[in-house]
C-alpha cells in the first residue's frame, strides 16, 4: 500500500499526462475518413516506435562488460528503429499516391 501511494506521489504529473492524452487521442482522431484509415494506422504505428527512446537510455546506462544487456538492448533498438523508419517512410509513400489530385 505504501509503495502505491509513494508511486502515485512521485508520478502524479505523468498520470495526469496519461489521462489527458487518452482524451486528446480520442478527440484528435474521432472523425477520420476511410480513405485515411491505412495511413493513419501506419503513421501511428511508427509513433509507437517511441519505445526506442527507452532503449537508448538503457544502452547508454548499460555496463559495457555486460554483453547480454548490450546485445538484447541493441536488438530492441534495431526493432524499434525498423518500426520508426519503415513506418514513416511507408506512410509517406502511400500518402504521395493519395496526393495526385485528379483532374476532371
Amino acid at each position, binding site marked *: 500500500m505504501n509503495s502505491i501511494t509513494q508511486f502515485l506521489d512521485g508520478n502524479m504529473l505523468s498520470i495526469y499526462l496519461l489521462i489527458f492524452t487518452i482524451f486528446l487521442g480520442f478527440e484528435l482522431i474521432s472523425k477520420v475518413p476511410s480513405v485515411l484509415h491505412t495511413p493513419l494506422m501506419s503513421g501511428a504505428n511508427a509513433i509507437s516506435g517511441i519505445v526506442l527512446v527507452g532503449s537508448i537510455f538503457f544502452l547508454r546506462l548499460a555496463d559495457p562488460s555486460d554483453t547480454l544487456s548490450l546485445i538484447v538492448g541493441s536488438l530492441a533498438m534495431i526493432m524499434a528503429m525498423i518500426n520508426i523508419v*519503415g513506418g514513416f517512410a511507408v506512410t509517406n509513400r502511400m500518402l504521395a499516391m493519395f496526393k495526385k489530385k485528379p483532374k476532371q
Partner: protein
Amino acid sequence: MTVFFQLAYLVGAVLFILGLRGLSDPKTARGGNLRAALGMGIAIVASLLYPLESSQGNFIWIIAALLIGGLIGWFSSAKVQMTSMPQLVSIFNGLGGGSAMLLSFVEYLNLNKSGSISVNLTSLTILFTLLVGAISFSGSILAYLKLDGKVKDKHVTLPKHQFINIILLIATIATVGFAMFNPSSTSLIIATVVSLIYGFSFVAPIGGADMPVVISLLNSVTGISAATAGFLYNNQIMILGGILVGASGTILTVLMCRAMNRSLVNVLIGGFSATGIAVAGASGQDQGNVQPTQAMDVAILLNYSEKVILVPGYGMAVAQAQKQAKELDEILSKKGIEVYYGIHPVAGRMPGHMNVLLAEVDISYDKLLDLDDCNSNLGDTDIVLVVGANDVVNPSALDDPSSSIYGMPVLEVWRAKKVIVFKRSMKPGYAGIQNPLFFKENTNMLFGDAGASLKNILSELKTLD
C-alpha cells in the same frame, strides 16, 4: 542543462499531436506524417545527447543499432508492393511491441542481478510492459503470416479455441504474477514464453474479414506497451506517444467493429472465422443454380450501360487487378458511362485497404462511394462488378438470422439491374460462408482470375466501337 532536453521532448510531443491531427484530413495528411517523423527525430537526438551522470557511452553499439534498424526499415518500406501493405504494417507493429518486450526483459534481469528487485510498482510496470509487448509481438507475427498466406486459419485454430485462450490468459497472468513475487531469471523466461504463446493463440482463431479489426487492435496494444515503458524511464514523450497510438488504434478498432455491426468481444471470439464455418454451412444449401457468363457478354452489357459500380474486395488485391480496373474505368468514362467504386469499410485485410489500392492506380477519390452512398446509388445502377469481394455483398447479412454475418451492414448490390461476380470458383469466401447473391436471377458469374477476366473484357470492349 537537462531542462533544454525536456523542452526538446515537449516540442517532439507537440509535433506528434500536430502530426496525428494532420493525418486525419486528406489535405494535410502528408505534412502530418512528416511532422510526426520530425518529432521522432527530435526525441531520438535529445535522448542521445541527454546528460546522464552514469552514462557508459556504448555509442558504438547505439549507432550501429540505429543504422542497421534504419536501413532495414527504409529498404523494406521502399521495396514493398502496395498489395502487401497489410503484412508490412503488421510486421512493423510487431517489432515495436517486440522492442518493448526485450527492453523490459533486460531491465528485469538487471534489477534481479543487482538484487534490487522487489514487489513494487516498478516491477509491475516492467512485467506489464513485457506481457503487453509480447502479445503484440507474437500476435502481429501470426497476423503477418496469415496475411501473407503462409499460415491458414485452419492450421492454427484448435477445437474449443476460445476455451484454450481463456486458460492461456489465466496462465499468462499467473506466470507474470509469479515472476513478480518470486523474482528469478527462470520465472522471467517462463512468463515471457507463456505471454508469447498467448499472443499467438489470441490471434489464431481470428481471420478473414476480421483481420482489419485485429490489426488495428494490435496497433493499439503496441502503443500501450510503449506508454508503460515510458513510466519505467519516467519519460513523458514515451507516455504521450504510446497513449496517442493506443487511442488511435482503439478508435479504428471500434470503427471497424461498428462497420460490421459486431462487438469487439464477438470478433475476438472468432465468430466470423474458421470456427464459424460449421454454423454457416447449414444455411448454405439448396440455392439453385448459378448463371455463368463470358467476358464478351459482360463487355456488351457494359457498352450499353449508363452507370457502373465496381465493388472491390481482397480478391482484387490478390489478383493485382486494380490496374485493369483503372483501364476499364478510362474506357467506360470515355464512352460517357459513369463509373463509381463501392467501398465497404471492412473490405480487404486492413482498415482502408481498398482505398490504398485504388489510389495506387490514381483513381480519383471522389469516385469512391462509402457504404451508405453506394447503397443509395444502387437503385439506378445498370451493372455492378463485384471484383474479389464476397462477404461484404452477402444478402444473408440482412435476411438470414442463422448466418454468422447476420446484422452486418453490406453493399446491397443485388438491387442493381445486373450483377457480375468475378470469382475463381464456387468455393465459399474467406469467411467460409455461402453467398446467396451468386444464385440471384440478376447475377452472372464470371469465373477465372479477376485480373485476367478484366483484361478479356477490356480487349472485347475495344473491338466494340
